[in-house]
């Protein structure tokens, strides 16, 4: 349903997080078309991820995390399909089962007093230390957003950190036949 003042007040469906995966022709301006549709029609983008997934066919996969009622999200899907270079739109929450993961890189301010605690925590979360030429403490953690959130919360309680996150990517885990 739209959010205009004309909208009927009886809409009750609750706002939920949705992961949309959009296959597009990898041509100039395609990302602008997709995100422009979101901003132009007043929808939300919580995170966005784009990468080419097949070199030969020139196709990119855009993963968008958004939130909204099921009516809003269904309208988002249909508006995305109107965009000429869009091949397909899949709502992974409707597919039933999917797996998602994201990567975070964490620069940790380390001192003699917190060093032990930091390494213990990183170990617990299986965060991996990334060697670098300046020999600073940078950890990489991958996994579901929830897990990354928890890690960041806990490390923040120990010391100061700087964080960069990729935002989630996701794929359907339903069994497919090879011909498809």
């Amino acid at each position, binding site marked *: 349903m*739209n959010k205009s*003042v004309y909208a009927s007040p009886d809409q009750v469906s609750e706002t939920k997080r949705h992961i949309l995966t959009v296959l597009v022709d990898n041509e*100039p301006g395609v990302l602008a078309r997709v995100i422009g*549709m979101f901003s132009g029609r007043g929808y939300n983008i919580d995170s966005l991820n784009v990468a080419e997934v097949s070199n030969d066919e020139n196709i990119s996969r855009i993963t968008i995390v958004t939130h909204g009622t099921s009516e809003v999200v269904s309208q988002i899907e249909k508006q995305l399909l109107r965009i000429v270079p869009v091949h397909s739109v899949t709502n992974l929450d409707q597919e039933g089962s999917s797996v998602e993961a994201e990567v975070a890189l964490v620069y940790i301010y380390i001192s003699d007093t917190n060093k032990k605690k930091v390494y213990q925590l990183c170990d617990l979360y299986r965060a991996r230390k990334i060697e670098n030429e300046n020999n600073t403490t940078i950890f990489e953690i991958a996994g579901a957003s929830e897990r990354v959130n928890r890690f960041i919360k806990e490390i923040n309680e120990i010391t100061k950190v700087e964080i960069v996150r990729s935002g989630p990517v996701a794929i359907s885990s339903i069994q497919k036949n090879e011909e498809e």
Partner: protein
Amino acid sequence: MNNEITGAEIVLKSLAEQGVEVVFGYPGGAVLPIYDTLFKQNSIKHILVRQEGGAIHAAEGYARSTGKTGVVLVTSGPGATNVVTGLTDAMMDSVPIVCITGQVPQHLIGSDAFQECDTTGITRPCTKHNYLVKDVNKLSSVFHEAFTIAQNGRPGPVLIDIPKDVQFASGTYEEKNKIIIPSHRLFEPSPDFEKNKIEEAVELISQAKKPIFYIGGGCINSGPKASQLVREFINMVGSPVTMTLMGLGVVGSSDKNSLGMLGMHGMYEANMAMHECDVMINIGARFDDRVTGRLDAFSPNSKKIHIDIDESNINKTINVDIPIIGDVKQVVEKMISIWKDKKYKIHTDSLKLWWDKINKWKEVDCLNYNNEGKQIKPQHAVQRLYELTKNTKTFITTEVGQHQMWAAQFYKFEEPNRWLTSGGLGTMGYGFPAAIGAQVGHPDALVVDIAGDASILMNIQEMSTAVQYRLPVKIFILNNEYMGMVRQWQELLHGGRYSESYTDSLPDFVKLAESYKAVGLRAKTSDELDDVITQMIETKNTVIADIWVTKEENCFPMIQSGSAHNEMMLSKDQKQDKKSAEKGKILV
């Protein structure tokens, strides 16, 4: 053998192969190579407008009156930004347009060069698709794809931005039939598409006691055959039918089933029937806010069938029971064959009761107005125009405002593609250039722009175009010296404070016409009206007819914003209750 040609030649060759006969445009630095090529050929005619905004509305008028794709050619920078309104208009009203813009040479892109702008960036939200062509060898395939996309599925505007160096560069031309467009870039329903839903829908219609067909512009876009099929199906069912502003003409005004237009200024009987129906069959309309009024009170007790080629229109504002995605022509054809096969028939007694009820509503005579006095009533002017032109092949265009609604209410359309108006975007200044485009497409027809005194000034410069090409377009101005619709809203919703809606210092329209070497006519009183209209029709030249109408006439009936279909205002005396008027004020 070297069969390379220049980019500019590829442009012209592509247009020729696409069957383009006429281009509306305005030259400038970044399109000079294309204009040079245009000069050297004879197959494509160019209509020089006086402002790019006029070019695109003219192309829209041409497209909507002929069913072909309208083509626009303008330069970079201001040329491109001036067509943005028209592109948005074509997007909202689903008009097939291919707009070619020049761009600064590639090595200058991004340098803030003279007359540079990010054309593809600016036009992305107001086109169906757009291209910046960097490789001359891709130019022909881009053109062929652009024409296909403009016409395919729900039609719309497509823009092609061509840097000047690409217009000069040499490359190879590829023919239309050598281009393969991947299927995901187009909408191609299979013949059996939605078969079950169509069967379900026809069965639902057959069980209806109070059906109504709600017809929109999609039926016109689907081609003249679609209108024929829709008429045939409605006749078989025996159901009443109402049309949106964009759908006027799909079913003839004189058709016994027609209730006329619905919506904000629609017919009382049409809106009441929409409110009380039990089965609503929406064909090619999109539940626009001008049609639905208050959503939570929209046709509360009906099952709704919605046929649309654009899936995003389904459940966008109104939830429907049976959505059918497809082309009107194909879907209705299938509906007819199912209706015949299953020998469906609507229950005669309940249908009769339904029509009795509707005929009672008709007795309200909602278009009734007081036609006393010597002054010309605007409604009367449109009625006389209709009576005096109904036996001629006539195209009516309009600007936007009160005159547009009076034209929709009082001019009776019997055929599709004869009525050209800016519905979705509501663009003042649309009507006159659109009339020019329609006249270019139909040189022998009568083309009348029913205008208001404020709207006509928005593209008045096109007088020069009309006269240059000897286009006998008639401008029929309902002159009340106000922006009438603005004034009406100010009267009804803003305590009669007519803030900036009175147009002081209007030109003398007769002298204005004469200064362009056109003909100017004026009617000040009712007894002059018929003579002026007759003279206007008989003049084989561009005419401005300045019709002085009563200044403070309001357009009724009216559903005020925020009200429901059964809460129509039939006259000024019938005030809306204060609470819902306050609520409606924030709406447009």
